[in-house]
């Protein structure tokens, strides 16, 4: 048995309404509810991820600043160390130079003292020799008769010689 081609059938309309409600419920409580839930969850996760990324970025920037500060500090410190070392080296160099100079001075003084001493000694020796020569000369003169004038002349000559010697 078939209905007519175009009939309005209350039963079919009622059943169709119920069926439409059923399929609507399936869409609402299976598809839309579940997908909405997962979309909301994903949006939440995405926003969490973003905030995590933001805070990580902030941390990284803070670290970077700290690092830059530390680097600047290290540079200053290095400069300080270098300048301190330079000063120290300068000081030490000066001290070494100073002591060398002093030593040289001392050596020179010592040398001059020695020279003086040797000179004095030489003079003494010379005087002794002069004495000897005078004695010798006296003996020679004694051997011959000499006048008073000769005597005086001889002594003058001798003294002149000695002075010349001394000058030389």
């Amino acid at each position, binding site marked *: 048995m078939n*209905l007519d081609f175009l009939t309005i059938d209350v039963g*079919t309309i009622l059943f169709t309404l119920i069926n439409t409600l059923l399929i609507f419920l399936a869409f609402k409580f299976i598809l839309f509810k579940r997908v909405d839930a*997962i979309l909301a969850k994903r949006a939440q996760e995405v926003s969490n991820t973003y905030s995590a990324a933001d805070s990580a970025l902030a941390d990284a920037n803070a670290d970077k600043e700290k690092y830059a500060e530390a680097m600047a500090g290290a540079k200053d410190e290095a400069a300080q160390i270098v300048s301190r070392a330079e000063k120290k080296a300068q000081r030490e160099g000066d001290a070494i130079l100073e002591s060398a100079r002093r030593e040289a001075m001392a050596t020179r003084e010592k040398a001059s003292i020695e020279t003086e001493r040797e000179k004095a000694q030489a003079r003494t020796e010379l005087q002794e020799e002069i004495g000897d020569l005078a004695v010798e000369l006296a003996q020679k003169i004694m051997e011959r008769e000499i006048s008073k004038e000769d005597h005086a002349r001889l002594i003058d000559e001798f003294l002149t010689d000695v002075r010349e010697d001394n000058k030389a």
Partner: protein
Amino acid sequence: MHISDFLKGSPDGIDVKGPGVLCSFEICGITINLTETVVISWGIILAVTLLLLWLTHDLKTNHISKRQVAAEWIVTTVYGLVEDAMGKRWRWFAPYIGALFTFSITGSLVSMIGLRSVTADFNAPLAWALITFVLIHGTNIRTNGIGGYLKGYVDPVPVMLPINILSEASTPVSMSLRHFGNVVSGMVITSLLYFALSVVTKSIGVAFLTIGIPAVLSLYFDLFSGFMQAFVFIMLTMAYISNADGRNEA
């Protein structure tokens, strides 16, 4: 076989029937028929429910499966359609639109597996059009109040009253008849064509015409027309309801 047989029609003839009645019973003096349409609808509901359960099981927030992509695409597309046509406040309406579209398109497409289209029974689109009708007027009353709603019938001049009533009443009639007419005409044309081709086949004795040609036509009448009518139906539903909700008028 001669060409005259074609003109006379086949011995079986062409008989486009209404939906078959499986059983009928009476409640309060009203005969309730359990028709082909209803039973096929139950099959559709079962299939759609199973499909939705399969699509939405084990949803994840990342590394999602193609199945989930499809599920999310359906939901976001329907939301997009509803928001475009009705505005964001009508977002909650999306599941109904999705359900209506699915029911309509599957109801038309069951013809492709040899069943009688649900939408080729006038009562199915009529039921949907009645839902739309109730929603239109419910929305109108909610927006304008009962006074404003009734006043709408005598706008702009009281003479318009019969025309306004006619116009309101014609909405569900035109919606349901459009849907029914399109699907059923496809069904009739397919039957006619199949009949014509089988007669030609009988007269020339080669059975190749009935293979292929009906399939191509079925592509239009079942797939395209089924999709178009479902789409037109939901778009009209949204447009009418949105129109009744005056707040949307920009």
